[in-house]
């Protein structure tokens, strides 16, 4: 019997570039109060959102993924032809067949790419980044494009004020490649399938959440996952410059930051609050927040960034990266 050859990739990887896109249409809290019983202050108090972006009917998840992915490549200075794998974490494709990744890769110009979607809901981006990094380290891939993209307005009942005020549309992407110095730490991931009923699609049509139980889980169980990601990367809480939790709800983001500060994270830790102007965009929220923060100058190249995603499944994943 012949012995199979295996490949060995580079020891380390890093994020080479970041990009994102949002639909043009801005929806304010006042806009929502025209169509449902709510108001600006109520929304700000509950979820911390000031405005969000909704895609038009003909602007699809894959369209947003193509734009975000192309921008990340441009930011990285990487040609599409240098990429061999495209991963599109998402949970809102209009139907399960076909996937998003193959068509997105083709439209970006990554011909014949290994292409697949990952559904770990709002944890999806951190799952995808972990997979991308390890594909490169194993020698299976050279450079990987990871694009979180969502059109959540397709799965939200526009009259359901619990969810319609939260969810929004958009895409965010990162290019991952080999590196001399480690720029992506090991992923800390897992799931809590016993809590499957906390977030699901009611009648296979509209998203439903057990608000209180999701809030309790996210505010108590996610900080320990973030700390595990730090431990895996050999980084002390006090060494973290930037925290980017999935932008689920500003109160969850603040609760996670508070718990990390109690474990030694600095008072001047920069905490992503992109949800204020972007809403909750599920698997797009983390790369989109990083892109916006880099452009605003609140994050600098070389910063130590702790990212953690969490959502339906329930699923969670986090890792440390060095800002490109």
């Amino acid at each position, binding site marked *: 019997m012949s012995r199979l050859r295996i490949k060995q990739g580079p020891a380390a990887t890093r994020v080479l570039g970041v990009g994102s896109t949002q639909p043009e249409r801005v929806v304010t809290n006042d806009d929502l109060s025209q169509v449902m019983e709510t108001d600006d202050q109520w929304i700000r108090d509950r979820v911390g959102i000031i405005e969000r972006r909704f895609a038009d009917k003909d602007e699809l998840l894959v369209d947003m993924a193509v734009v975000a992915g192309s921008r990340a490549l441009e930011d990285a200075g990487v040609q599409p032809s240098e990429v061999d794998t495209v991963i599109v974490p998402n949970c809102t494709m209009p139907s399960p067949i076909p996937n998003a990744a193959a068509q997105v890769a083709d439209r970006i110009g990554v011909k014949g790419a290994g292409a697949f979607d990952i559904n770990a809901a709002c944890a999806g981006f951190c799952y995808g980044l972990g997979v991308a990094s390890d594909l490169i380290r194993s020698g299976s891939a050279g450079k990987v494009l990871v694009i979180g993209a969502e059109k959540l307005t397709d799965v939200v009942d526009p009259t359901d004020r619990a969810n319609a005020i939260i969810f929004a549309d958009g895409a965010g992407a990162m290019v991952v490649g080999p590196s001399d110095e480690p720029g992506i730490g090991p992923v800390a991931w897992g799931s809590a399938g016993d809590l499957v009923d906390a977030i699901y699609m009611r009648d296979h049509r509209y998203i439903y959440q057990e608000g209180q139980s999701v809030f309790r889980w996210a505010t108590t169980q996610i900080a320990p996952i973030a700390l595990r990601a730090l431990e895996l990367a050999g980084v002390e809480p006090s060494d973290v410059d930037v925290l980017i939790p999935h932008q689920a709800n500003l109160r969850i983001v603040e*609760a996670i930051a508070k718990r990390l500060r109690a474990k030694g994270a600095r008072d001047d830790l920069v905490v992503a609050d992109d949800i204020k102007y972007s809403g909750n965009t599920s698997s797009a929220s983390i790369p989109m927040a990083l892109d916006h923060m880099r452009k605003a100058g609140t994050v600098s190249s070389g910063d130590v960034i702790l990212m953690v995603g969490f959502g339906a499944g329930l699923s969670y994943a986090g890792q440390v990266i060095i800002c490109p």
Partner: protein
Amino acid sequence: MLAGGAKPGKREREPTVADKEEILAGLAEIVEEVAGVAQDDVSLEKSFVDDLDIDSLSMVEIAVQAEDKFGVKIPDDELANLKTVGDAVNYVSANAK
């Protein structure tokens, strides 16, 4: 701390007035920290929602902190029944270890 006349190890004792005052004070500290309500306003007859203007997510934060402080479990379905501060004090005193 045992109330006078209780038989340790036999059956759960009845909570005393002093125990409940202690729980109320501890709960008031939590409510102030989570929701910014002055501790003096947190009295037994007050409704969390109608009088103290505390929303459902803040109730979860209060429950999580109360669990740590008093060593009780307050599941979400029980939490829904705790309408007033007095309900919460009674629940904690009946379920604390």
